[in-house]
């Protein structure tokens, strides 16, 4: 990027301060760039489609441009003259049972995350999986998904996946490998059984090590146990960077055994999160979000909602949902936890907390005490075991344990190995000592993500035989003798447990595309057997269930996606009374602290090659395709940093360079590095993105470390962030103060109860009855509408991914995102309120086409490519669109997306397989936008018409609605008074975006309600008094 961009993007922090000075009201802003009014922001604001003039590569002048355009016009006209190409139909020889050609089938399966299952229903279109939905029967899903499970279908069809077995980098085969490993382990035998060479097994197999990621699979566990029985020297290690080591250690100390903990958020009145981002993509986040938001629903009759307190480092989605969040460096959470524990009568010596936090601590403790038995205190994986023990103590003291918190046995297959860092350390020590002769790495990429101080790659070099099974030919694969392509979970038979122990049999949706093998099959080969995954998994369950009635049991388990009766029973556990807490860790005042977090969209790096997740804006920073060095406003001021500056972070003598992002709410002395980027052996999508934070992450301080240094190196290129894109008039600060109609409406439960008209009154204009626009809607037809409950929305972004998967939305790449051309039909706007240097609040608002009844886009289209249906849909007809983009210019909500280039891949065969056959794949030059999933509407309407009835409420579930774990989205017929959407529209929280334009959108929003503690926040007695007087 040139220097012009750099000066353009230089953030004037003094201007930010100035813009915020004196503002105390309910004013919302989206970015620091907006507050500082950078020229770059102005550019985005002033032009509807930013930087359209820079479409052509540099060096193309106006005349050349005209020539090219003239020629393309002529050629484009000629293409219409071609005859339709011949197409072929290839029927089955013998059709599969139950398959109706053209009608998708659904199969239950599951994806694992940190070993734990989230149940899914996979849509299968004539033999290829094309979309994933949550499995309503599965306790971790309840019908919804998270961004990873939603996007995992794209990884199945990733053309960069490893496609062949490799021996020393050269192409080989699975059979060669199976033979090789059989001989190596079991020794060579002649056909008559005479042994002619010794295998590793014959020397007790002391040199064999298996390294897996977290495993819950009962089949894999039983296979490993059998192997260990036959080869006593064989050792099994588990490591993945997201292990909950401190929680496991804490459980051992507190309860004397590893435990599984279930949090019943739907029963909790008060929740205190100690740096636990339980709403973000952890394995149970879908269930947590569902339960948590269920307890936050406000109806006219029911307004006893839960209250969430959150003490955290770098702002997270959980913090954004909190009623009271404080942001402190993670090392100080312990002090806060101790202080709260002391207030509640738990013996936890330590210094008093900061004056500024004392009031918060007192209020939290009082609230927890008041709701003893219905509270939850939970500690995050990044906190040391001490904080976890404190949480256990508090929960026990308040009687929460057993009420809102359920303890069970640990879910992991080998809980003893669950202190994964120790497990990996042992392995590395053995490797360095030359004790390991054969190392089999089943999935994962330890060379990339192992703690840097262990120097895994160097230790690996001392192992005589190294085998890697993985989806990609990655950093680890390159260091191994053998690399075997792993089968994607949608190609394999396996099984896994979820958080409550419920087992799911994972069944494949398609045969392995590249002859990939599963961990089960590799272990079978190690044992000298050639069993398929299907046999292995089935045999395991047959043994466990018994022969009697097994077929019925097996079919039910596969059909339902859960094995009934496998949930773990609750355990009554008590914290050991004699457990003494270690002395408080002395806090270093003023020292710079570095914290590590998983990237919010690509996780620990395993999703780095997934374009949907790379392009999904990170929920708070709204960055795409990059990770940033996240600093707060005070630190940026102190060190004179601007966004995009390149800085060098030194942690424990190790250095890493990255680009700065200034995050409102970030504590002053905290620098956050996000893991998962900076791949060296990355495939096409991940290549060159971000920096590798693992290069400074050590085994003793995996989550935060004090004594970091930060040095500015210089200016950097512009990062692709979407918070300044698609800005709506009225979104901006001055527009809000002028008209007083923020696009997000937020109040408190107390205000709303006192004054239910609170939000309705914000529509200060009476509705216009007169309009020159005609309304083609028809009272005989069902009228579709949608409501989005901002009170439930956590801003996770799964709706965006689900929409992308359902509607064949292309990925455009970093450069195009920089130009503001991301194609997502839904964007999740994130608004801040309050001081960016303090603890600002964040509100999320998903915005897609709102399907105006009086749509401004329709009247300006010269070719009638966007017109109204009489069911109230604003139809977009791609084959008519000539790409004038007038509609987009005239759209006040900025929800139309234009294919500036040929974004959708219509050439790579494997990438065609992910497309939804019911939705057109758009070409260059075509406008597109949310259709309310019209393909699903048509399907339901046809089904209803065949039965001569209307479409029932709940029969049409849009892709975003299905995926939403918070159940924030309702869709249906607004003329049917009994439908959920009609009820929502008459709710007093219901409001319309930009209602003064009289566009009459079919999508309306429901205001967000916070539940502040009166001790911490003065609540206006009269809801309207806090509002500015309205102009009329």
């Amino acid at each position, binding site marked *: 990027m040139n220097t012009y961009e750099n000066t353009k993007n230089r953030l004037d922090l003094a201007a930010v301060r100035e813009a915020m000075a004196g503002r105390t009201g309910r004013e919302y802003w989206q970015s620091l760039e907006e507050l500082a009014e950078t020229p770059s922001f102005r550019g985005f604001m002033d032009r509807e489609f930013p930087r359209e003039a820079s479409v052509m590569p540099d060096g193309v002048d106006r005349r050349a441009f005209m020539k090219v355009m003239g020629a393309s016009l002529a050629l484009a006209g000629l293409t219409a003259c071609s005859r339709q190409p011949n197409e072929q139909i290839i*029927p089955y020889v013998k059709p599969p049972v139950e398959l109706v050609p053209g009608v998708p089938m659904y199969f239950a399966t599951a994806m694992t995350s940190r070993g734990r299952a989230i149940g899914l229903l996979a849509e299968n279109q004539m033999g290829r999986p094309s979309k994933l939905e949550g499995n309503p029967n599965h306790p971790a899903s309840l019908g919804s998904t998270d961004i990873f499970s939603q996007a995992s279908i794209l990884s199945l069809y990733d053309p960069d996946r490893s496609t062949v077995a490799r021996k020393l980098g050269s192409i080989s085969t699975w059979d060669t490998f199976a033979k090789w490993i059989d001989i190596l382990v079991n020794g060579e035998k002649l056909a008559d059984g005479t042994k002619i060479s010794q295998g590793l097994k014959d020397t007790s197999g002391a040199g064999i090590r298996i390294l897996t990621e977290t495993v819950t699979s009962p089949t894999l566990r039983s296979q490993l146990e059998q192997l260990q029985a036959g080869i006593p020297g064989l050792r099994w290690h588990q490591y993945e960077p997201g292990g909950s080591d401190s929680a496991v250690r804490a459980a051992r100390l507190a309860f004397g055994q590893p435990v599984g903990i279930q949090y019943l958020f739907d029963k909790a009145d008060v929740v205190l999160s100690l740096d636990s981002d339980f709403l973000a993509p952890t394995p149970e986040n879908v269930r947590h979000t569902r339960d948590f938001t269920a307890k936050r629903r406000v109806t006219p009759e029911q307004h006893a909602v839960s209250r969430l307190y959150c003490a955290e480092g770098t702002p997270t989605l959980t913090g954004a949902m909190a009623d009271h969040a404080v942001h402190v460096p993670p090392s100080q959470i312990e002090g806060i936890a101790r202080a709260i524990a002391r207030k509640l009568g738990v013996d936890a010596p330590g210094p008093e907390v900061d004056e500024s936090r004392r009031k918060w601590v007192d209020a939290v403790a009082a609230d927890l005490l008041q709701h003893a038995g219905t509270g939850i205190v939970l500690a995050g994986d990044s906190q040391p075991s001490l904080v976890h023990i404190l949480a256990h103590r508090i929960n026990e003291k308040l009687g929460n344990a057993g009420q809102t918190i359920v303890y069970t046995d640990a879910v992991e297959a080998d809980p003893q190995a669950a202190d994964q860092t120790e497990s990996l350390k042992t392995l590395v020590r053995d490797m360095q000592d030359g004790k390991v002769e054969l190392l089999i790495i089943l999935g994962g990429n330890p060379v990339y993500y192992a703690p840097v101080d262990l120097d895994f790659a160097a230790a690996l070099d001392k192992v005589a035989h190294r085998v890697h099974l993985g989806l990609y030919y990655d950093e680890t694969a390159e260091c191994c003798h053998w690399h075997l392509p792993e089968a994607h979970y949608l190609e394999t038979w396996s099984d896994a447990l979820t958080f409550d122990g419920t087992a799911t049999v994972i069944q494949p949706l398609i045969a392995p595309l590249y002859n990939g093998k599963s961990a089960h099959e590799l272990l079978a080969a190690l044992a000298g057997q050639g069993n398929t995954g299907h046999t292995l998994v089935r045999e395991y369950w047959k043994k466990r269930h018994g022969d009697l009635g097994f077929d019925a049991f097996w079919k039910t388990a596969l059909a339902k996606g859960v094995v009934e009766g496998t949930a773990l029973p609750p355990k009554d556990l008590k914290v050991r009374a004699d457990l003494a807490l270690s002395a408080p860790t002395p806090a270093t005042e003023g020292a710079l602290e570095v914290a590590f977090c998983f990237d919010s969209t690509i996780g620990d790096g395993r999703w780095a090659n997934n374009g949907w997740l790379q392009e999904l804006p990170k929920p708070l920073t709204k960055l795409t395709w990059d990770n940033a060095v996240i600093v707060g406003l005070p630190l940026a001021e102190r060190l004179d940093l601007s966004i995009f500056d390149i800085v060098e972070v030194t942690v424990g003598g190790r250095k890493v360079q990255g680009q700065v992002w200034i995050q409102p709410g970030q504590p002053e002395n905290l620098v956050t590095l996000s893991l998962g980027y900076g791949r060296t052996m990355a495939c096409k999508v991940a290549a060159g993105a971000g920096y590798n934070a693992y290069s400074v992450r050590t085994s003793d301080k995996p989550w935060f470390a004090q004594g970091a240094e930060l040095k500015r190196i210089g200016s950097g290129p512009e990062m692709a962030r979407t918070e300044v894109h698609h800005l709506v008039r009225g979104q901006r600060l001055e527009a809000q103060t002028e008209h007083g109609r923020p696009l997000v409406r937020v109040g408190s439960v107390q205000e709303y109860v006192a004054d239910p008209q609170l939000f309705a009154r914000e529509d200060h204009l009476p509705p216009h009855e007169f309009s020159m626009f005609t309304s083609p809607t*028809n009272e005989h037809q069902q009228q579709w509408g949608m409501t989005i409950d901002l009170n439930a929305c956590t801003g996770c972004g799964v709706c965006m991914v689900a929409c992308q998967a359902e509607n064949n939305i292309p990925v455009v790449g970093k450069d195009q995102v920089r130009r503001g051309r991301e194609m997502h039909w839904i964007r999740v706007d994130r608004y801040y309120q309050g001081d960016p240097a303090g603890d600002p609040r964040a509100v999320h608002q998903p915005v897609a086409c709102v399907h105006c009844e009086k749509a401004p886009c329709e009247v300006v289209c010269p070719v009638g490519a966007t017109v109204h*249906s009489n069911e109230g849909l604003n*139809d977009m007809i791609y084959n008519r669109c000539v790409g004038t983009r007038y509609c987009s210019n005239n759209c006040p909500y900025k929800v139309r997306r234009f294919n500036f280039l040929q974004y959708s891949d219509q050439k790579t065969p494997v990438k065609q397989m992910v497309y939804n056959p019911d939705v*057109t*794949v758009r070409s260059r030059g075509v406008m597109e936008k949310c259709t309310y999933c019209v393909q699903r509407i048509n399907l339901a309407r046809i089904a209803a*018409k065949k039965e*001569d009835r209307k479409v029932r409420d709940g029969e049409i579930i849009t892709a975003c609605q299905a995926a939403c774990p918070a159940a924030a989205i309702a869709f249906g017929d607004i003329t049917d008074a009994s439908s959920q959407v009609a009820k929502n529209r008459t709710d007093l929280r219901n409001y319309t975006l930009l209602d003064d334009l009289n566009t009459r959108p079919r999508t309306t929003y429901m205001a967000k309600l916070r539940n502040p503690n009166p001790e911490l926040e003065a609540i206006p007695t009269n809801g309207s008094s806090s509002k500015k007087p309205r102009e009329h």
Partner: protein
Amino acid sequence: MAQVFPSSMNTMARVSIVGGAILLNVLLGGAMAFYRSPFVTNVNVAKEQEVPFSHKHHVAGLGIDCRYCHTSVDTSPFAGIPPTETCMTCHSQVWTEAPILEPVRNSWDTGTPLVWNRVTDLPDFVYFNHSIHVNKGIGCTTCHGQVDQMPLMSKANTFHMAWCLQCHKSPEKFIRPKDQVYSVEWKPGSNQLDEGKKLVEEYGVRVEQLTNCSVCHR
């Protein structure tokens, strides 16, 4: 200065104005005629197939119902092309040695599917659903013509949007009783309009909805 053009040029100019207009119309008309000609639309042009399957023989001669082969026509958007198994239900017993059925037997023996050239092929941006049409009284022959008279399959209509819209605007002209949907003998009677209107009402066809763009395009 002498006149550059002789006075006859006045006539020439007039002729060329009129002639130009005529020429333009002829060219335009020619292009439109070409676009609608069987060369482009393939109407009534029989397609070559691996197996010269005769609908005339199977439908008119043997009286096999459409749904015997096109099994999913009333349940799916796609009518379904019979798997080799369907062919072999009869042809494992009759015409077992016929050379023209060699590809069928070969497919059955080797498990390699037969490959058919598509006769009726809508553009990819059109989403047609067979099931709703046959369930609402639109017969097979209305679109596919008298397949019982086709030794080799060909398109009976252009399948242009204007052609679709004839029915989507006035279904009463084409709708037939549900029990006649699969009949190849049914022909609209002289009172089709009256009968059709009744059927449209009876089957709950909402005519105003049929011209919503998103009914076919999405």
